[in-house]
């Protein structure tokens, strides 16, 4: 079982898609003139052929509207070009731990787009987060112009902060080591920068890199990390959501985000007690999105600034990930409630909403006898309860110990 991922260009005649025997579906990445306009998952019979006609009818249904919007946008832009403000220099920060192979894959994908970018300078910083062997250092050595930084304290946000201080660019773009960048990734980020002077940060589209296992397909079917193909803008408050910006998960995901580096430094960087690896592997991105918005600077979601993420392979890994989401969300809420008293009511509201929403999802899964949704739902809920019950404090103690050990 597995889905074949196909990248189709809609502005040229469509060719049929043939599946290998090990594939029983297609993940369609649709572009119009190179611009990403849609993603669809289609279940098919094993070794089936998706004819050009079938592709066209899917495109009629799913992508045609977005093409018209993209066309209109292009015409409007031609009529009234955006002022060509100088772009900041860019630092790309990749935090990695014991995943030399994936890191090489990512660096490879970056190599092919680094040349000819609109940014005045692009540096790549790899933070080796306490890897046990030298394979990461060796992998970095095989690429040109990559800065290698070793961070001995294990924890993603230790690494992110190390990158923040080692980097020199005006803009810092973070990537997780389990992604590969889209060919328009840099152009998308450049466009977002030009279009939005004054933005504090950017998030982008996250598409699946592979849909080879049941867990990967299941996760992507439930929405994955995708936040859609429409540009979006986030501010300190939002008319249509009274709890905003507390529910900062809608902004995007930590595996693909960029910030004004000076702003991030002035905010004190990432909270090292979040995203600490195995015990509390989440919440750091939520926390930084939240703090950027609270500082009064907007954040922009730009779908053309896209990466492909390698989802968890096994059901057990995925179940654990649901658990960590609940955990990370609640740790973030507990922390924010403590540090940002002004929005206490919203934090409480968010806790209520979150549990209500997850219980609702559980009830739905139970009614429809969807055992897997039920298990994942319970994992996430349990993670939430555990997170609410002092996880942030436990994590702070753990982090303090790590700091002391590495003094």
């Amino acid at each position, binding site marked *: 079982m597995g889905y074949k991922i196909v990248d189709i260009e809609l502005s040229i005649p469509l060719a049929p898609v043939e599946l290998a025997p090990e594939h029983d579906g297609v993940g369609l990445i649709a572009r119009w003139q190179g611009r990403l306009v849609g993603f669809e998952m289609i279940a098919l019979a094993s070794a089936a052929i998706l004819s050009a006609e079938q592709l066209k009818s899917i495109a009629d249904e799913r992508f045609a509207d977005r093409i018209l919007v993209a066309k*209109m*946008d292009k015409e409007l832009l031609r009529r009234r070009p955006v002022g060509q403000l100088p772009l900041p220099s860019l630092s790309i920060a990749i935090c990695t731990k014991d995943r030399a192979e994936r890191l090489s894959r990512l660096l490879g994908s970056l190599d092919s787009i680094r040349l000819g970018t609109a940014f005045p300078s692009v540096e790549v910083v790899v933070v080796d987060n306490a890897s046990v062997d030298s394979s990461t250092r060796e992998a970095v050595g095989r690429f040109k112009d990559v800065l290698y930084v070793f961070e001995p304290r294990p924890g993603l946000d230790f690494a992110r902060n190390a990158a923040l201080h080692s980097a020199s660019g005006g803009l810092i773009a973070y990537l997780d080591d389990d992604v590969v960048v889209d060919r328009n990734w840099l152009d998308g980020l450049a466009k977002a920068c030009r*279009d939005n002077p004054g933005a504090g940060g950017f998030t982008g589209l996250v598409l699946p890199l592979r849909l080879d296992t049941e867990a990967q397909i299941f996760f992507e079917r439930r929405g994955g990390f995708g936040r859609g193909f429409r540009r979006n*803008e986030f501010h*300190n408050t939002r008319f249509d959501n009274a709890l905003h910006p507390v529910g900062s998960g809608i902004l995007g995901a930590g595996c693909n985000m960029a910030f004004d580096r000076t702003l991030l430094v002035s905010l004190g960087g990432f909270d090292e007690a979040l995203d600490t690896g195995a015990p509390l592997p989440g919440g750091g991105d939520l926390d930084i999105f939240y703090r950027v918005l609270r500082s009064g600077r907007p954040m922009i979601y730009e779908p053309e600034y896209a990466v492909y993420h390698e989802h968890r392979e096994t059901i057990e890994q995925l179940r654990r990930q649901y658990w960590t989401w609940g955990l990370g969300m609640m740790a973030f809420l507990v922390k924010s409630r403590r540090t940002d008293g002004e929005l206490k009511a919203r934090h409480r*509201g968010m806790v209520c909403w979150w549990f209500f929403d997850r219980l609702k999802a559980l009830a739905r899964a139970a009614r429809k006898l969807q055992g897997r949704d039920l298990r994942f739902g319970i994992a996430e809920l349990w993670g939430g309860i555990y997170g609410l019950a002092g996880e942030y404090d436990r994590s702070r103690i753990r982090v303090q110990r790590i700091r002391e050990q590495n003094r």
Partner: protein
Amino acid sequence: MNGDAFRVRQIDLGSVCADADAGDTPSLSIFWWKDLPLGMRASLPDELPYSEARLRQFAAEFSAAQLAARSTPLGAPLRATYEGSPKSALCLTAALGAEDLVGRLDELATASSASAQHISVVICTRDRGPALAECLQSVARQRSAPGEVIVVDNSRDGSARPVCIGFPEVRYVHEPRPGLSVARSAGIRESRQDIIAFTDDDVEVHPGWTAEIARAFEERDVEALTGLVLPARLDTIAQRRFQFDMGGFGTTFVPLLFDRRFFDETRPSGAHVWKIGAGANMAFRRSAFDRVGSFDERLGAGAAGCSEDSELWYRLLATGGTCLYEPRAVVFHHHRRDWPGFRQQIRAYMKGHVAALVTQYDNFGDRGNIDRIWKQLPAYFLRTFVKALFEGPPGRTRILAAEVEGWLAGLQFLVRFGWRKRRTSNWLRKKIDDPQGAARTIPVSKSLSKRSDRRPFLP
């Protein structure tokens, strides 16, 4: 968020490239492309002023939707889906082939210059002098003057007469029998033109209103038309609740065709005719009244509460007619300012809705109407209640209480057999059973001429 008044502002995306808003108050921005309404968006001060990129995004998204809904090669006209919302019929080839989109949009946005001499504007009013004066002023500013303007004064003592004296082109009619349906029927009776356009006394119409109605009836062979009702002001909490929580009078900015198919699809839950539009902005061909009769006098403000408009659309759709929603015909409605008045209105809406469902059931025997009363509405109350508890918006439960009250009050109509016997349309059912009869039209002027007739559309 509850405290601040919202500014209602109009932005022409065709000419503006930077938003000059000070970002000091929340606002509802209504976007236009010249004379074409494109869409609207509410924003808090933090989200304002809109950046250039934001405005371009709005322009691209809204106008793509307009093109898809209005250009025949791109799939127009759109039928209303089950939810009463538009469903694009755009296909890949058409989207790829479309060229010069801005030019096309400019064409679509050209204001109508159609003559409105064949339109009678009917405004029913009851003891709202100052509002009526504003309404009449806006009617006097029409680009295409209507053939006639009739004010039906539904007050006991003719209090609107002094207001109307200031407008020489207005024909004043006094209809002391209370009830909006009664007043509207009186307006139909008095009118002489082929198309009758209704608006309310708490409305200001856009300068192109009559011209757009004229154009829509010229281009489309429909019996009834409804248009876009935008909020004029959002100063008070009651006005904002009505607009934002209850959806105001609709938020769709693309034209939609409501036809027999929409009727059949939504029939199991009582045919969602209320999604067609609002009485504050609707027009009919005179022949429509000849065919299915006038407004049911048991319904509407001053009687059961409301829904006299949607019940008439129900009759039209049930007998094969079509209604067009054309948002180019724009009016601005002054929502109730005070909370008790707003609450009262919500209660009246629900009560009137139940009464209309009973009426529709009696007229056509569609079980869906009764199912809606007993199943869908209580389910909606429960859903809304649970959602309001956990997700808000705050204050939604108070509105819900008014809705439930209205529903309870509306249940009386189920057992008021005398009320139900005064049914509107025995003849109508006969006409459906007997297609020959359906061809015969009943001259409305004759049946309406007797004032004492409680059922003016019966032969």
